[in-house]
């Protein structure tokens, strides 16, 4: 019997690296991997920054390497020219034609080695206009992004400008301006916010009624029905308004019936006694 040749001895570190290698290989070819759907590695080539409305505006031309390209939330790893790194989320993107798209950028953590800059910064939300040329084979692209970034401080600073009289003053100053489309956009965005706030108040009122041991079954039922109607109105404003009007009519009708019934019970019958009419 030929003795089995001894296996070459392997260091523990070697075995660990083997295992990591196998795992990475499996993950690399996994058709449905865990984690973000889109994973991009970005190296900015040209960066230009400016400030407007208290916000940071930037133009960046970058080289991109798309590691994972499924639709959905995108995680971008940026390696800056100074060697520092950023981790950024792109929450969604909308194509607006001619190869351009608008991106809604989510929270990001930025680092910097540049003297004078904060070593760690953060972004809460941003909007970017971007376009890129993609090499389908290598999944590499060159892109430009014009983006606006805001922080909580920006929001507070801008909000503090809405002092008494400021809006009326702005309206006078803007009388000859082409800013109408922007105001219209804000106007359209405000309607679901108002109906949403009303619906939230209604839902909370209904919860309060449901908890109240003294509330009648009818009161509880109306409170819940109102809350449901107000919720529908967030998406179908007119229908929900009509629905609420109908509920008010039903409630008024019920109250009127109850009041008449009480009055009938309290008022002595008038007219001739029964059988003498």
């Amino acid at each position, binding site marked *: 019997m030929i003795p089995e040749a001894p296996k070459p001895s392997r260091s523990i570190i070697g075995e660990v690296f083997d295992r990591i290698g196998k795992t990475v290989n499996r993950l690399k070819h996994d058709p449905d991997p865990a984690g973000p759907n889109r994973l991009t590695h970005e190296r900015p080539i040209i960066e230009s920054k400016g400030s*407007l*409305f208290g*916000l940071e505006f930037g133009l960046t031309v970058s080289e991109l390497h798309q590691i994972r390209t499924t639709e959905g*939330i995108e995680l971008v790893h940026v390696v800056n020219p100074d060697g520092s790194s950023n981790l950024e989320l792109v*929450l*969604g993107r*909308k194509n607006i034609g001619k190869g351009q798209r608008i*991106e*809604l950028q989510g929270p990001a953590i930025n680092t910097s080695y540049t003297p004078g800059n904060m070593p760690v910064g953060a972004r809460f*939300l*941003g*909007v970017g*206009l971007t376009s890129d040329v993609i090499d389908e084979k290598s999944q590499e692209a060159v892109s430009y992004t014009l983006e606006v970034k*805001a922080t909580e401080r*920006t*929001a*507070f600073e801008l*909000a503090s*400008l*809405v002092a008494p009289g400021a*809006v*009326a003053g*702005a309206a006078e100053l*803007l*009388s000859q*301006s082409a*800013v109408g*489309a*922007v*105001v219209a956009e*804000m*106007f359209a965005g*405000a309607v*679901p*916010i*108002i*109906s*949403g*706030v*009303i619906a*939230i*108040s209604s*839902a909370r*009122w*209904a*919860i309060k009624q449901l908890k109240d041991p*003294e*509330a009648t079954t009818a009161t509880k039922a*109306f409170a819940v029905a109102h*809350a*449901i109607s107000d*919720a*529908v109105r967030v*998406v*179908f404003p007119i*229908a929900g308004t009509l*629905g609420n009007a*109908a509920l008010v009519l039903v*409630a008024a009708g019920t*109250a009127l019936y109850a009041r008449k019934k009480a009055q009938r019970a309290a008022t002595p019958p008038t007219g001739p006694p029964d059988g003498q009419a």
Partner: protein
Amino acid sequence: MDRPDLSPRLEALLTDARALEGSDLGARLAWLEAVADATDAAALGSQGKAAALDFRAALGAIILYARGKQDPADLPALEATVRMFVTRAQQATFGALAGAYRDLAKRAPADDRAECAALAQAFTEMKDAITQGGPAPKAALDRLEMIRGRRAL
């Protein structure tokens, strides 16, 4: 106990929105300021405060533009700024809506529980769609349409 008129100011603003659709800029800006004030005063907790702050920030950007050079070249930046803050205010509102109807579903009578849960789900999906910059998802709209049909609203 009768249901009190919960938000008369907001109800009036919602009604005015239709009347103001073709109105002048000054009236619209005054209406937007009133929306920010009413949202802030609605006592909705942190989410209501966040929505009011974002709404005021969008209004603040318009005021800043008005006080500046009013360069038309700055309009795309102004639009992006306003869109960003309004989007964030909508996110906060839809998140609060989902939470409120989820709570209501836990306590509502058995007949209404499924509808409240469906509303909470629809608002969660709509919040996610706003976060990703997409339109309201069809499944959420279908769910609301079904409730509207069932309740004959």
